[in-house]
C-alpha cells in the first residue's frame, strides 16, 4: 500500500536521485583516471563525465584540496536541492542524514579549539551539510554541560547529547567519548525512525544502519586497546541497534585483543568474511577498506528496490565514497606515488 502513494510526495525526488546515481563514475572511468599523469589530465577526463565543467573556472595549477572542495560542493548542492523539495516524513529522514555531519563538525571544532586554533581557520574545514547557526560560537563552552546549555540545546542534536552532560573539562579523551556517545544515540534514533517509517524503507535502512552500528562497535573495541578506556565505559559506547546486539556486544565488551575481536566476528557470517580478507601486509586491504567495500555493496543494493527513502542515504554515501576515491587518486597523482593508486573502492 505504501508503494502506491509513495510517488505522490517522493516520486519526483526518487527519480531525480536515481538520475544522479547514473552519474556515479564507472569502473572504466576509474581505469582512465588512474592513467592520468597530472591533475590537469584528471580535470580533462572528469570533464567528460557527469561532473562536466565543474573545474572549468579554476585557475591552474590545480590543487587536490580545490578538487576536493569542488566535489563536495557539487554533492552538497544536489543534496540541498533534494532536501528543499522534500516533505514529511522524507525531510526528517534527510535531516537525520545531516546530523552525522553535525556531530563530526562539533567534534572537529572542539578539538580545534582545544589545540588553540582560531575558529575562523576551522570553519572552512567543516562539512557544509552539517553546519548550523550556533556552530561558530562553540568555543564559548569549556565543559560538556556548558556546551549543551549554551550551544547544542537549540540544535536538533540536543536529545542525543543528554547522556554526555558532565561538568568535567573537555579534553582529548572526553571528546572521543562524547563523539561516540553522540553517534550511538544518533544511530539508535535514526534506526528507530526508519523502523517507524516501516515498509521498504525500514527493510533497506535498518540493514545499512545495523551494519554501521556494528562497524562502530568493532572499531571502537579495536581502537580502545592500549588506552585508558575501561571495559565498562567501552561497553556503554556500543550502538545497540546492530546484529551484534546483544550477545556479540557482550562478547566484544570482554575482548582484550584483536584476535578476540576476530573470534567474536567468526560467529557472524558477513563479518567473518571481512576479517578473513583483511590483513596488514603490503598489498592486503585493511579492515577499514573491507568495511568500506561492504558498505558500498549494501548501498548499491539499496537501489535494487523502489519506493523507499534508502536511495537518498545510499546515494549520498556512494557519492562520498566516490569523492574519497577521486581525492585518493588525485593525491597519488599529485605526489607521483603511483604504487597505491589502485586502492580506491570501485562502486559499479
Amino acid at each position, binding site marked *: 500500500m505504501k508503494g502506491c502513494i509513495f510517488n505522490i510526495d517522493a516520486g519526483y525526488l526518487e527519480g531525480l536521485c536515481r538520475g544522479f546515481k547514473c552519474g556515479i563514475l564507472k569502473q572504466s572511468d576509474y581505469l*582512465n583516471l588512474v*592513467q*592520468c*599523469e597530472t591533475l*590537469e*589530465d584528471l580535470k*580533462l*577526463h572528469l570533464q*567528460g563525465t557527469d561532473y562536466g*565543467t565543474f573545474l*572549468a*573556472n*579554476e*585557475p*591552474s595549477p590545480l590543487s587536490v584540496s580545490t578538487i576536493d572542495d569542488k566535489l563536495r560542493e557539487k554533492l552538497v548542492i544536489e543534496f540541498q536541492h533534494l532536501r528543499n523539495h522534500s516533505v514529511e516524513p522524507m525531510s526528517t529522514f534527510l535531516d537525520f542524514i545531516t546530523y552525522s555531519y553535525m556531530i563530526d563538525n562539533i567534534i572537529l571544532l572542539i578539538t580545534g579549539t582545544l589545540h588553540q586554533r582560531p*575558529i575562523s581557520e576551522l570553519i572552512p574545514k567543516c562539512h557544509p551539510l552539517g553546519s548550523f*547557526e*550556533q*556552530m*561558530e*560560537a*562553540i*568555543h*564559548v563552552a569549556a565543559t560538556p554541560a*556548558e556546551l549543551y*546549555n*549554551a*550551544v547544542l*540545546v*537549540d540544535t536538533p542534536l540536543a536529545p542525543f547529547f543528554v547522556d554526555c552532560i558532565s561538568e568535567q573539562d573537555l579534553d582529548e579523551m572526553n571528546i572521543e567519548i562524547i563523539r561516540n556517545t553522540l553517534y550511538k544515540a544518533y544511530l539508535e534514533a535514526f534506526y528507530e525512525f526508519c523502523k517507524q517509517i516501516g515498509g521498504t524503507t525500514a527493510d533497506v535502512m535498518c540493514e545499512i544502519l545495523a551494519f554501521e552500528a556494528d562497524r562502530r562497535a568493532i572499531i571502537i573495541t579495536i581502537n580502545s586497546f592500549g588506552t585508558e578506556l575501561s571495559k565498562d565505559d567501552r561497553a556503554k559506547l556500543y550502538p545497540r541497534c546492530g546484529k551484534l546486539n546483544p550477545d556479540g556486544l557482550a562478547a566484544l565488551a570482554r575482548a582484550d585483543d584483536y584476535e578476540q575481536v576476530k573470534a567474536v566476528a567468526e560467529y557472524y557470517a558477513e563479518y567473518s568474511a571481512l576479517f578473513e580478507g583483511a590483513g596488514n601486509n603490503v598489498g592486503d586491504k585493511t579492515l577499514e577498506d573491507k568495511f568500506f567495500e561492504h558498505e558500498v555493496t549494501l548501498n548499491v543494493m539499496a537501489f535494487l528496490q523502489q519506493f523507499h527513502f534508502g536511495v537518498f542515504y545510499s546515494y549520498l554515501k556512494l557519492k562520498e565514497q566516490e569523492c574519497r576515491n577521486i581525492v585518493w587518486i588525485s593525491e597519488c597523482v599529485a605526489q607521483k606515488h603511483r604504487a597505491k593508486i589502485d586502492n580506491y573502492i570501485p562502486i559499479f
Partner: protein
Amino acid sequence: MFRSEEMVLCQLFVQPEAAYVSMYELGEAGIAQFRDLNPHVNDFQRRYVTEVRRCNEMERKLRWVSGELPEPPPPPKPSPRVLTPREINILEERIDYIESEIQEITKNAQNLKTDYLALIELKLLIEKTQTFFQDHSAHRKISASVQIYNNDGALGHLGFIAGVVATARVPSFERMLWRISHGNIFFKQAQIDEPLKDPVTSHELQKTVFVVFFHGEQIKLRVKKVCNGFQATLYPCPATYKEQQDMLAGIESRIKDLEMVLEQTEQHRRLVLANIARDISTWMVVVRKEKAIYHTLNMFSMDIVKKCLIAECWVPRCDLHILQKALDNGVKASGSPIPSILHHVPTLEIPPTYNRTNKFTRGFQTLIDSYGIASYREVNPALYTIITFPFLFAVMFGDMGHGLIMTAFAAILVIFEKKFAKNKTDNEIWNIFFGGRYIILLMGIFSVYTGLIYNDIFSKSLNIFGSSWQNVYDEGTLRNYSTFELDPKDAYTKTPYPLGIDPAWQFAANNIIFLNSFKMKLSIIFGVLHMAFGVTLSVVNFNFFKKAELIFLQYIPQILFLLLLFWYLCILMFMKWIMYSADATDNALGTSCAPSVLIIFINMMLLKESTAKGSCKPFMYDGQEIIQNIFLAIAFLCIPIMLFGKPVYQIMAAKKQKRGGVEGGAGGAGAGGAGGAAGEALGEALITQAIHTIEYVLGAVSHTASYLRLWALSLAHAQLSAVLWQRLLKIGLGGGSPVNAILLYILFAAWAFFTLAILVLMEGLSAFLHTLRLHWVEFMSKFYEGQGYAFLPFSFSVILEADEVDIKEKPNGGPPE
C-alpha cells in the same frame, strides 16, 4: 536539394607547420567533416593537449574579465586573418597582464570598500546608540554607571560592547548571549534601515546595531567569543555624548576622504575595463577558434617518421577545390617546401548525408530530418514538402481570415528577419516560430487560398461574384415560412460560381452535409494522389541505385494496387460529379438516382451484387461490373508479386553467381557453405518482404482512411469558428441601442482573443501536427529509408554558436584565488 550531395573521403598529408593555417581556413569554410583517427587514445594523451589546455586557460581568464565588465561587451569584430603562433603568444601575455591588473584593482577596491563599510557601520552605530543612551530613563542610569565605570574603573561594574551583526542572526545571537551569561546581560538592538553593500559580492546586507551591557570581566570575554562566533563586528563606542560627537565628526571626514578615493578607484577601473571591452569579444572568438583547431588536429594521426600529420575527412565533391586551396594557403603561409597532399580514398563506408540548404529550405529540411536523416543520396522528400506541406495544412486550416493573420505574422518575421536574428534569445517557443518562419508564411498564404475556395472568412462567406442561386419564391411565401427549399432545377442559374463554393450555401440548412460530402471526397482524392506520388518517387531511387528489377517487382505491383483500387474510387467520384445533375433528361441520371460511391466501392471489394431501386440503374456505366472485377483481380494478383518477387529474384541472382563460380573452378566445399548461408538469408529476406508487403497492403487502406483527417480537421475548424461568431460577436452586432456598443467592445475583445488563441494558435498547431504525420507516415513510408547520418562539418560558426549557448547556461564562476 533533390538528393544529398556526393561526398568524397579524402586523406590529407599535411606538414604540422602548415596544418594550423589550413585548418583555420577549413574552419571558416565549414566544408569538411574530420574523422577521429585515434579513437582509442584518451583525451589527455593526444598530441595537442597542451595547446588545448592553454586555450582553456585563456578562455577562463577572458570569461572572468568579461564577468567584471559593467555591461555586456560589443559583438566581436570580424577577424580577417589567421593569427600566427607569435601573435597568439602576445595575446596570451596580454590577457595574463590584463587579468592580473584587474585582479589588483578589484582587490584594492574591495579593501577600500571594506574600510568604507566599517566606517559607515561605526557611524550608524554611534547614531543609533545615542538614542539608546538618551531616550529612556533606565538607560540614562546605565549610561551614568557606564560613565562611572569609564571614569573610575574601580567603582562601577557595568561594561558594554557595541557592534553590528547580520539581522537574520539576531534572535539566536540574543538567545545565545542570554544563555551563556545565565540571563545577566542587557541586550539592546536597532535595525539599520537602508541595506549596506557587501564589499566582495556587492550583495545587499541587512544589519542590526546592538549594544550589550554586562557585568564583570569574565562575561565580557565570553560575550566577545559569542560575537566572534556570530561574525558580529565590534566597534569601540564612547559612552559620553561629547565623545560621541567628536568621534562622529572624525568619522564623517574620514568617510568623505574614502568616498573620494573610492570614486577615483572606480573610475580608474572603469577606464581600464572600457579599454578592454572593445576587444574582449574578438579575443574570445580568436581563442575559441584556436581551441577548435587544436581539437581537430588532435583527431589526426601522426606519420610513423613524424614528418607529417594524416587526416581523413568527408568533403562534398563540389567543394574539393576549397579544400585544395586551403591546403595550398597553409603551405604558403608556413613557407615549407613540401606541399600538402590531397588524396581521394575509395571506400565502402557509407558517406554522411549533406543537403545544402538556404534560409528558405532549411525549415522544411529540418521537418524531414527530425523523422530520420535520409540515406546517402536517396531522394530527398524535403523538396516536395515545400509545397505539399503548406497545402495539406491549408486544407485543414482553410479560412481566409485566419490565414491572413498567420501570413501577416510570418511576413513580419521574414521582413525583419535580420533584426530578429541579431538579438538571439533563449526563448524556445520564439526560436521555434522564428526557425519555421518560411513554413508559417507558406502555410498562411495557402490557407488564404483554401479559405477562398471554401469561401470562409472568419466563418462567413464572401459574395464576390454574385451567387449562382436565385430566389424563386414571391413575397408572400417568403413571409410565411422561415425555411424553404430551393430546387436546383429552378433556382440554379446554370453558370457555376467562378471560384470556390457558392456563398448561398452559407445560409443552407444542409450546409454541413454538403460540405462534408465535398471535403470528404476531396481529402480522399488528395490522399491517393499524394501516396501515388510517394510510390512513384521510389522509382527514382531504384533507377539511381541501379536496381531496375525492383521497378517491376515492387513499384509496378504497388502502384497498380493503389491505382486500381483507390484511384478507381476517385474516378467514380469524378464521374458522379459530372454525370449526375438535377436537370438531366434521363431519369437514371437524375438527383434521386445518384449512387453512393462508397457503397459501390464496398460492393466491389466484397463482390456483392449491386441493386437498384425504381428506374435507376445498378451501375454507373455499362460493363462496370466486369471492369471492377478485372481491377480487383489484377490488384490482388499484385500481392504475390510484391511478396515473392524480390526474394525469388535474389535466389536466382545468387544461383547464377554460384554457377559462374563453379564453372570458374572455385571449389565445391566453399560453395556448399555459402549455399547454407544463402538459405538463411533467403528466409530472412522472405520475412522482411512479407512484413513490407503486409504493411503496404494494409497501409493502402488505412493510409487512405487516414487522409480523412483533412476533412475532419477542416470541418472542426470551420465549425469552431462559426460557433465563436455566433455565440460571441453576433450578440454584440445585434440590436441598435448604445448599450450594445459597449457590449460589442467587450465581446469583440473576447472574440478576437479566442480567435487568436484557439483558432489560429491551437488549431494551427494541431493542423500542423496532423500534416506532419501525413508526411512522415502516409507519404514518406512509400519510398523513404532514412537510414543515413548527418554531415557535421568542422565549422567555426557552429562551434562559436554552441559555445555561446553554453556560456549563457553556465553562471559565471567566481574570481580565481
